[in-house]
């Protein structure tokens, strides 16, 4: 009993560390992608290729002066960013990262912190309560712009939550369970020998409508462009986090990017097959098990070459060392003990990176919605679309029987 508790605590600590690092480097990733989309370089000076920029941003947030306006409601002003960040990070506890079980201190435990039977419902419950962080932050700041921005933002989140949960019902009908690991294992198998039976291409009824609906609702739910009217700088000062400074603002930021990661993880689990590999697991295709180490080796060699030719001396030292570490990891991935275990997490991370890339791409490509256009789109277009998806999927399931 005590060892199970200890193992859970270790998993929680490791996950927390990875999530916070991932959120910080997701900011770097977004700035680099945005810059290259706009024909410039992005962060380049702070460490080689701007890799130490998140560190600098973190230091800035911690060392800035924490200004609290005098007429705010102190208790609510304090807990609003806490609520946002805590809920956003705790939603990742339900995500399974791989099929295998690893042994820590002799206890065999799956690669998920909380494998509960209503995993999907729990994540939606956390998203529902996350609306309060925004609404209370806007209200407690005691400022017109904050209140308006907070109200608009939370109304938007509540409206798109409906389409979000409805677009997932098609997947639930096909799988018959709320458990996230089971949802992934039901997407195993390959139709016609080569097309993976992910929910996006699933045999009775491909969930393309559901995926599109889910993705758009997810972008609106996390208040990202093109649905970020309530917090964009050129629109309403900064909306509900106008009056927040230094660490509290950083908590809002962290919460937004963490919920982005959660939504991307859910999208891959529900529609893109989670940790399943896109290649059939036959003996003839065993070479696909070497893809993770091949990718890592390419990345390592690229880093070494780029490091040797880098301009600053610091980069000339750090980048080749990093490249050598990545090459060593790639060699590690070919060892028999690791090669089977690394497949699940590798494909999962690859799919999440793809979804996040599309997320960032959409943000820096499309113009912003006006608020009434946004609400009209959510209620009059996406919601009927999600309902239609539910009806069609249930028809297909019934006809298959």
């Amino acid at each position: 009993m005590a060892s199970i508790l200890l193992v859970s605590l270790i998993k929680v600590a490791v996950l927390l560390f990875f999530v916070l690092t991932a959120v910080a480097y997701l900011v770097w990733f977004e700035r680099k992608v945005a810059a290259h989309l706009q024909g410039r370089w992005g962060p380049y000076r702070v460490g080689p290729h701007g890799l130490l920029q998140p560190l600098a941003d973190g230091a800035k947030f911690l060392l800035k002066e924490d200004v609290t306006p005098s007429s705010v409601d102190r208790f609510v002003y304090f807990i609003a960013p806490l609520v946002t960040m805590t809920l956003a990070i705790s939603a990742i506890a339900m995500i399974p990262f791989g099929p295998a079980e690893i042994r820590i201190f002799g206890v065999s435990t799956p690669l998920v912190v909380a494998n509960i039977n209503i995993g999907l419902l729990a994540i939606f419950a956390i998203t529902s309560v996350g609306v309060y962080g925004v609404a209370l932050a806007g209200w407690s700041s005691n400022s017109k712009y904050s209140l308006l921005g907070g109200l608009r933002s939370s109304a938007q989140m509540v409206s798109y939550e409906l389409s979000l949960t409805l677009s997932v019902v098609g997947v639930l009908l096909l799988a018959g369970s709320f458990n996230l690991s089971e949802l992934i294992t039901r997407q195993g198998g390959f139709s016609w020998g080569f097309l993976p039976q992910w929910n996006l291409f699933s045999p009775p009824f491909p969930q393309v409508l559901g995926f599109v609906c889910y993705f758009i609702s997810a972008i609106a739910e996390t208040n990202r462009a093109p649905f970020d009217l309530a917090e964009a700088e050129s629109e309403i000062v900064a909306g509900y986090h106008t009056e927040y400074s230094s660490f509290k603002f950083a908590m809002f930021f962290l919460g937004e990017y963490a919920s982005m990661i959660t939504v991307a993880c859910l999208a891959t689990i529900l529609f893109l097959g989670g940790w399943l590999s896109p290649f059939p697991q036959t003996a003839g295709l065993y070479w696909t098990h070497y893809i993770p180490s091949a990718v890592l080796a390419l990345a390592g060699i690229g880093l070494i070459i780029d490091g040797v030719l880098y301009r600053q001396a610091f980069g000339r030292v750090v980048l080749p060392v990093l490249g050598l570490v990545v090459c060593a990891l790639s060699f590690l991935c070919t060892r028999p003990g690791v090669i089977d275990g690394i497949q699940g997490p590798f494909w999962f991370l690859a799919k999440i990176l793809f979804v996040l890339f599309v997320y960032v791409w959409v943000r820096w490509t499309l113009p912003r919605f006006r608020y009434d256009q946004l609400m009209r789109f959510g209620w009059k277009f996406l919601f009927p679309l999600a309902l239609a998806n539910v009806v069609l999927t249930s028809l297909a399931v019934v006809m298959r029987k």
Partner: protein
Amino acid sequence: MTPQMLTFLVLAAVAVAGAVNVIVLRHPIHSAISLIVVMVSLAGLFLTLEAEFIAALQIIVYAGAIMVLFVFVIMLLNAGEEERTNMSRMARYVGVPLGIVLLGELAYQVGAASLSMTAQPADASAIHGLSMLLFQDFVFPFELTSILILIALLGALVLAQRREGAPAKREQQNAG
């Protein structure tokens, strides 16, 4: 002190503290936040009673939608703190202690009643059983409540609309 007892005590303490805060705090927003705390701890208690679906439903619908409605209305109506009037001396010195005694007596009698049966183990997959009941035995109330929600939606929309000419009347009042 088994883990179940400890969980129950912690969740119950949080629920009672939240409920007391709901009726004691003066600003409606603070009462609303306390009520959300009560609902979340009740969801935890539902989990200990093996009603996982209802627990998730409680958080998604009750704490995540109905209370958001309350919070919106409080913010839109700009509700301020309640005025502080002193209770009558009889109420303060006799009423409140007697009320607490009554509540304690009620709780004790209910808690020590002969209904102290231990919980029986429920069968697996409550969601399956729940949906079977909902769509077979209780399908008529189910459809009725969906119509009820539709009526409530329309009613709320119609009630809260501003009539034509009402904004002009308010400006007259503000100017005069």
